[in-house]
Structures are given as structure tokens and as C-alpha cells.
């Protein structure tokens, strides 16, 4: 596992952004967004992938586009239309807040590897949940294949002509086969000595570097709250 930022820092950062979006005044959203972008870049940029998605920008630009028409008093003429400057700023503020939250969530979660996510669960005492996550990740491909095979089998045999029966049979077959795989997993895990009821000492979730990081974020929050841009 990498030294920093680890799962603890990601958790701290996400909580920090959530708190600040609730208490920061409107004008401070831009510096908060810049902080989020910097943290995302620090993590290699993986968590910034929403910025490349069309749906993301459709949602953001829709709010910015609608707001001058709907919010505030219409005080600007734009051709035949009357728009609101106040509404535009309100729309921009809402958009910045949404971008901050979405990117913070994406950066915090997406930058974690599956193994670190498992460690996160184990670190908070959920050993079984960490194990289940690993099992689920590795079973995903197999279950996808069983769903596909059952679906195509039913379809090739004309199941689409009786859709409700087909759906019922698909669900029963898929779930039953998945549980059979699960029984094999139980045997294998037991053979490797796994016991969810026995907790062994885990490396601490929060380390010194995370503490330093948390203090840094508190300082940044203070600057944002006390020194408006």
C-alpha cells in the first residue's frame, strides 16, 4: 500500500469537502474547487474522470443555462429575452458547489484501489465486509458469464415470447447458480483458514501523515472562511 495519501487521508478529505460545502459562503466555492482539483491531481488524476463525461457537463451547464431565466429579478435584456444577472450568479454558485461535491467524491473513492478499500473496511472493524468485497470483485466476471449464458439460452429457446416467465426463469437460474459458486467460495475460504469472527491486529487506518494532512485542511478551511476572495 502506498504511504500517502492513504485511505485515511481520502476519508478525511471527503468529510472536509462535505462540511465546507455546507458552511462556506457562495463566493468561496471557487477556491474550494481549486483545492479539490489539486488533491485530485496529487492522486494521479484518476478521480477527475467525471470532467471527461458528457452527462456531467450536460447537468452542470443545464443549471447555469436555466438559472438566469428562472431565478431572481429579470434585469438584463438579451435580444428579445429578459434575463437575471442575480439568477446567473446563483446558477454559477450551484454549479460550483455540485462540481466540488462530485469531484471530491470521485477523487476520494476512485483514487483508492480495491485493496485499499478492503483495508478501509478492515480498519474500521468490518473484516467480513472487506472479505465480501474481495469475493464480490472476483466473482463479478463469473456471474456476468452465468447471467449471459442463461439469458442467451432463454432467448434462443424463444423465451422472449413469454417475457414474464423468461424473466422469472432468468432470475431463478442466475441466483441459484451464483449461490452454487458461493458454496465453492465458502469451501475455499475455509480451507485457507478464514474466520470472520476472529479479528487480528490491523495496521492503523489513520497514520501520522494523515494527521498532518488533517491539520493542513483545517488551516485551509480557516483561510477560506476568514479571508473571502
Amino acid at each position: 500500500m502506498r504511504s500517502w495519501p492513504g485511505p485515511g487521508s481520502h476519508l478525511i478529505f471527503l468529510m472536509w469537502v462535505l462540511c465546507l460545502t455546507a458552511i462556506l459562503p457562495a463566493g468561496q466555492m471557487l477556491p474550494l474547487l481549486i483545492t479539490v482539483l489539486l488533491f485530485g491531481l496529487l492522486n494521479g488524476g484518476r478521480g477527475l474522470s467525471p470532467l471527461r463525461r458528457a452527462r456531467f457537463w450536460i447537468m452542470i451547464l443545464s443549471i447555469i443555462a436555466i438559472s438566469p431565466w428562472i431565478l431572481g429579478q429579470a434585469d438584463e435584456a438579451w435580444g428579445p429575452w429578459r434575463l437575471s444577472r442575480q439568477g446567473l450568479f446563483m446558477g454559477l454558485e450551484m454549479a460550483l458547489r455540485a462540481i466540488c461535491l462530485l469531484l471530491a467524491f470521485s477523487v476520494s473513492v476512485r483514487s483508492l484501489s480495491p485493496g485499499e478499500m478492503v483495508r478501509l473496511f478492515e480498519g474500521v472493524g468490518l473484516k467480513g465486509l472487506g472479505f465480501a468485497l474481495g469475493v464480490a470483485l472476483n466473482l463479478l466476471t463469473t456471474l456476468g458469464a452465468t447471467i449471459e449464458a442463461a439469458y442467451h439460452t432463454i432467448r434462443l429457446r424463444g423465451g422472449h415470447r413469454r417475457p414474464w416467465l423468461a424473466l422469472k426463469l432468468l432470475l431463478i437460474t442466475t441466483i441459484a447458480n451464483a449461490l452454487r459458486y458461493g458454496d465453492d467460495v465458502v469451501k475455499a475460504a475455509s480451507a485457507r483458514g478464514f474466520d470472520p469472527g476472529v479479528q487480528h491486529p490491523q495496521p492503523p487506518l489513520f497514520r501520522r501523515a494523515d494527521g498532518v494532512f488533517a491539520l493542513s485542511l483545517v488551516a485551509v478551511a480557516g483561510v477560506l472562511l476568514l479571508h473571502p476572495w
Partner: protein
Amino acid sequence: MIKEKTAGLARYTVRDWVYVAVFGALWGAAELTLGSYLHVLFPPLADTFVIGLIMAGLGSILLLVGRCFVPRAGAVLMMGIITAVLKAFSLGGIVIGPIVAILAESLLIEIALLLTRQPVRWHFALAGSLAVSWNFFHKFIMMRLLFGKGIEAVYLKMIQDGSRVLHLDVRYSLLILLILFLVRVAVGALCGWLAWDLGSAVQRRLAPAAAPEE
């Protein structure tokens, strides 16, 4: 130092956790394949009602059937967490809306099933209707969380302007919203009802064959 815990989730056996993983993976696989396919099929503005309803219904069914096989408090919520994490790791990046929906639906089902130790069909129907009814509130809550208070004014203005353009009383808008809500409740109840039957059918399908193949 090995510490043995005897309370709460630590009582889960290996089989319980594996089955939690299986149902979490099943819903995750459905979200990743069917969910993506439906988002392509339907335009973005339609997704909450149609796609959201389908995925919420399917998720409720899978969670409730899973509850038949892991009859422990917290199991449904654990399945939901697994699915949410799998969704978070899916290709294409984080989509926070579905993740929140998955967690909310599993939490609502968990709450509904806490009402009784031995659920019967009606509990499943109640749990299903609670879970799917989240779909009605999901968009509003997500927009409120993301965009803040200002979005409330946007929605209210849209309702007022829409009523004016269509020459409808605003109360009709509320009626439409109520109908949409009741549709979700009904769909959810139906899903819960069906999940009860499906759980029994799966148990019959798996009933011993006495022995493993060898």
C-alpha cells in the same frame, strides 16, 4: 493479540459473508450491464423515472431474495454497500447518484425488515415499496445535496411556469406528483411480493441434491 468478538456482524459465518458478496455482486453486475444499457437507450431526462424505477425494482428483488438466504440483521445493508462499492469501481468513473440510491434503498429495506424477526410476504412488500419509493425522492434529494437551496427555487418556478403554460391549476401538479409517488409504491410492493416467491423458488432449485457431484 487475537480478539474474538461475539456481537453484531461478527456473528456472521463465512457462508453469510460469501452470500452477502454473491448478492452484492449480482446487483452490481445488473447495475453495470443493464444500468449502462438503459442509460444509452433512454434520454438523460427520462432516466430517473424509467431507468431508476427498473433498477430500483430489480435491486429490491435481489436484496429481498438475498435476505432469504442471509436472514440476519444488517445483511441487506451490507449487500447494498458491496454493490455501491462495485459501482464506484466500475468503468467510466464515479456516478454518485446511483451509489446514493443503492445505499438508500438497501437501508430502507433493512429498516423495514427490522420491524419483525420473521418476515412474511407482507413485510417484503412493505420493504419493497419503501425501497422503490426512494426513487421518487432521489432526484430532488440529490439535486438539493449537490446544488444547495437554490435548486428548490428552480423546481418551484418550473412547476409554476409549467402550470401557466399548460393552463393548469398548480394543484394538478401536486396530483401528478402524488400519482408518480403511488406508482413507485405499487411497483415496489409488487417487487417485494415477487421476491418472496422468487426466494422460495430459488430455495427449491437448490434443495439437496443430497451430495456434491463426487
